[in-house]
């Protein structure tokens, strides 16, 4: 069972002295700044399905495509496995953005997992928007195992969108801010 609190703990522990913070900052172009003017790089949780998007991300990596290092990838068996609660929990525990990616319609390893996921995500996306949480925080994509370039592009777009929004203030647990 995926421990949803793990992400939050990790984030709560590592602060400015985390060596990765500087390393990441130097790689990513156009560093965003938080309200105190400090450099800020968003952390985005990406739930990738084992059969398509995870392989797509792997292809992007083995092909040495450059994309922002802001995503933290969680491999899931199917996009249908991603309970909307997982997404809410990520946002609450301090993720700046969430990406869920699965197989293209018709390509699901489990026949219809992505179709069922699409229904859930359509409602979740609208509900978050309805209660005033920015649309640009949570993204969904279809990326096949052959689409390394698309995966890199999706990550670029998602990272830009989250950077444009800045640090989240809504739904975030107090101690995570």
């Amino acid at each position, binding site marked *: *069972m*995926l*421990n*949803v*609190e793990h992400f939050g703990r990790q984030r709560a522990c590592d602060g400015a002295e985390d060596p990765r913070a500087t390393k990441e900052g130097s790689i990513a172009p156009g560093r965003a700044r938080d309200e105190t003017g400090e450099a800020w790089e968003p952390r985005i949780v990406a739930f990738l399905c084992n059969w398509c998007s995870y392989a797509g991300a792997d292809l992007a990596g083995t092909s040495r495509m450059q994309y922002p290092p802001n995503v933290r990838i969680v491999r899931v068996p199917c996009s249908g496995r991603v309970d*909307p*609660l997982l997404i*809410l*929990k990520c946002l*609450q525990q301090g993720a700046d953005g969430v990406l869920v990616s699965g197989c293209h*319609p018709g390509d699901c390893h489990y026949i*219809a997992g992505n*179709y*069922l996921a*699409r*229904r*859930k*995500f*359509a*409602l*979740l*996306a*609208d*509900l*978050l*928007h*309805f*209660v*005033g*949480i*920015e649309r640009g925080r949570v*993204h*969904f*994509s*279809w990326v096949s195992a052959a689409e390394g370039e698309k995966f890199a592009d*999706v990550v670029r*777009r*998602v990272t830009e969108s989250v950077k444009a929004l800045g640090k989240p203030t*809504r*739904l*975030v*647990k*107090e101690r995570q801010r």
Partner: protein
Amino acid sequence: MLTRGSSGRTAEVAGRLREIAADLLATGEIDVFIGYEEGTLPLRTSPAFLTRPDDVSRLVWNYMCENNLAVYLPGLKGRVGVVVKGCDVRALVNLIVERQVRRDDVKIVGVPCGGVVDRRKLAAALGEGHETIRSAAETADGVVVVAGDGFEKAVPIEDVLSASCVACTHPVPVVYDFLAGDDEAARRACPKEQAYSDVDAFASRGPEERFAYFAREIERCIECYACRQACPLCYCPECFVDRQSPKWVGRWRDLSDKMVFHLGRVLHTAGRCVDCGACRRACPAGIDLRLLAKRIEKDVLEFFGHEPGVDLTAVPVFATYKREDPGDFIL
């Protein structure tokens, strides 16, 4: 003595209910009949569980029969007769569709519904200083006379109806074995285009304002989970808020935890919620629980063309899909 009589149409319905209940219990077709009886306070009714035909005189019907009795059906053993309003029966249809209740085990006694009174609205209509109500009685069709310490006031029921009733699209039960009362006696169904007017009004506000309202409402939540207990569709053996591993919802009265609970709950009842208003009535903090649920209800109708609880042969909305479901939001 508190007088809480009903008059005209409602008295007729009560009489029919007693007849039906007595008949079903006497013939042994059911083991228990679930209806409403007088509560211990004015403007209250209690669920009544009757097992003997002699008990049926306890049954009442009036504008305070607000509980959704379908909540008692999942897991109930034996055959049951149950009194349902237009909304309650839709919850029951959901339970049958989700195989929590067997259609053959339940005798559905529908009542064409005139709506139920929202006690908070009534308190507002009575005004300050009129909190202590000694008696309430329906004197004529659609008028309740409320009397308390030093005041007596006639209130038209139409003015104090629950918001769910105002937006009700199915006042007459869609499925029933017996119908107590005349279709004509039911409230006029709210036109579909007006059913979501309050949701649309909220959606037209800015995101900051929407979030501020959401936060203000949810902040009052004391995490008693009465909304869950009152909901006929919340029958999970273990609710996600009660799980310890993974722990979805913390126990530190944190606003974000409360938000996760309410967003999670509304997503769990998505495509199933029939807006019976049970959660809202159960909420001791008076949180506007209807808003999110109603938005989801609208989405489910718009996106997937699904209306919950109107069709016994329906497939639950998340157990199926269509190729042409909306997907524009996907990169």
